[in-house]
């Protein structure tokens, strides 16, 4: 198990090396003539008004909430899926109940109208 993951760590190292090499190489090769106009925040040539702090809609948060729900459900569903072939039929009923409970909160969000993007 651990030795299997060694390659993942090495892969991470290799990717960082390769990409870091590209970034460093580019920073050596490229010209560097910053001017005030270049360093301005890009807003299609308009003057920037205020900073980037704008009020966001709570809807983003609610989408992330439902995502969290199914993500956490996934932690339970994947072990079940691995064991699926050797399970008796009544175990399936329990899992269906589990999934329907998850679906319940999606339907609640739907009924409350928070899935409507406007």
């Amino acid at each position, binding site marked *: 198990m651990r030795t299997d993951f060694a390659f993942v760590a090495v892969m991470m190292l290799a990717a960082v090396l390769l990409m870091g090499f590209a970034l460093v190489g580019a920073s050596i090769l490229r010209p560097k003539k910053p001017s005030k106009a270049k360093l301005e925040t890009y807003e299609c040539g308009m003057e920037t008004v205020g900073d980037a702090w704008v009020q966001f809609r*709570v*809807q983003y948060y609610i989408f992330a909430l439902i995502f969290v*729900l199914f993500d956490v459900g996934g932690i339970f569903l*994947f072990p079940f899926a691995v064991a699926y072939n050797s399970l008796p039929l009544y175990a399936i009923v329990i899992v269906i*109940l589990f999934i329907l409970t*998850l679906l319940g909160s999606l339907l*609640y969000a739907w009924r409350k109208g928070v899935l409507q993007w406007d």
Partner: protein
Amino acid sequence: MTLQQILFIVISLVVLGSAVLVVTTRNLFHAALFLVVSFFGVAGFYVLLDAGFFAAAQVLVYIGAISILFIFAVMLTRDVITAQRGNSQWQAAAIVAGVIFLIMALLLGPFSVTIRGREFGNANWPFAMDGNAIKAAPGNFVGILGTGLVDLNQYGVPFLLAAVLLLVAMVGAIWVARELRGREAERAAAETAVDDADMDANQPVQEPLPLIETETHEAHDSRNAAATEKH
């Protein structure tokens, strides 16, 4: 020092260092990013502990989902740069946390200190095992976990209760966080008006929050918006 010991020490330094930055840095967005680093290090611990499934679950749930919730919440409350690192009692909190850590370390490790002739801690702690004598974990523990979770004689009931907990949490969170609209919004406004009238005169009047809607709606006319080439 074996390679794994070195890895363990490096990962602990990453986890603990970024955890300290989480609780001390003033910029909350940076705190959330250090939280992500800390979570990633904990996933490294799980790999060292042969629990690869939980390492992936840690990345999926904590980094992919919970940290997104945190960052969204930070953006939604707009209070990103806090004025102070801690509140008025932060020194006391530091002392309390430090003392609790020392007590825990004494209880958990095979150390002991002698204060005025009395020994605290346990130098012969039974769990100070170094793991070379430990049984190998079953390779396919994920399948065994799956079997146990849906077995009513083992963890079937907690499994279903977990779903119910998630359902309740989501319903509550959506109910609390959603923006009121239409008739609901009118009713809520009427209620707040009544509340305002009831309120003490010396309470500060709460200005209603203007929802600054900065998002412009690019009218995507799907007919003429044929995908064009990149450059």
